[in-house]
């Protein structure tokens, strides 16, 4: 029984060269996944420490895999948004939009983006008072909307 989860495995009319390319892409993906896992491991252990807890290995591995999948999905989303806007290049607004499922999360990203804009003196448009007032906020768990 086919489900939506079945990716296009087996679709290939090119023969050998297609398979080679697929293998190459898979190898590259595996390499990137490993690099990401290393980052996640160090981020996770330090974050757990600040919370005063330890984190077990399978949990870290799971979060790393999820992060990779999130990154892939994010890439697809922002590409579609940029294309929809008639652009070839993804900008900050595309990324912020991809977080639309959680208002609080979107707000956090907008603040972060504002800070980034504020730090660049050459691309100065209107320096609103809001951007200047933004200080580093303490990270709290994101509120879940009921």
């Amino acid at each position, binding site marked *: 029984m086919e489900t939506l989860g079945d990716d296009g495995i087996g679709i290939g009319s090119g023969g050998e060269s297609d398979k080679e390319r697929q293998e190459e892409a898979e190898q590259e993906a595996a390499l990137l996944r490993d690099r990401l896992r290393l980052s996640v491991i160090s*981020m*996770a252990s330090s974050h757990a420490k600040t919370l005063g807890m330890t984190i077990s290995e399978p949990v870290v591995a799971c979060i790393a895999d999820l992060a990779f999948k999130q990154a892939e999905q994010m890439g697809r989303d922002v590409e579609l948004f940029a*294309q929809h806007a008639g652009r070839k290049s993804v900008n900050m607004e595309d990324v912020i939009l991809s977080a639309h*499922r959680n208002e609080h999360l979107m707000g956090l990203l907008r603040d972060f*983006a504002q800070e980034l804009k504020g730090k660049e003196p050459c691309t100065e448009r209107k320096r609103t008072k809001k951007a200047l007032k933004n200080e580093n906020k303490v*990270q709290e768990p994101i509120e879940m909307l009921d």
Partner: protein
Amino acid sequence: MEENFDPDLIHAIFKLVWSRRNKKVEGNQGIHLEGGAGTSKKTRATTANASALKVSCELLRLFVAEAIQRAALIAEAEGIDIIEPTHLERVLPQLLLDF
């Protein structure tokens, strides 16, 4: 948490995803353009600007931090100080819905 992901790593992941899609699109286009003059029009690959990459890193960082924080809450409620897979399991559905 001061650490963040490497923007180049995130950029590499994006490029992988975009080239995958580009190949699919090019494959479909090849079927339609067969009758015309033999010009191979390559669709320009998507790019991302530097600040977009930084915001993406921040988004992924928030994902990891949120996963750990929510799982830690469950573990704390049980009086354990090690975060186990069962704790992550409990928070996973809502986490994935939120992101």
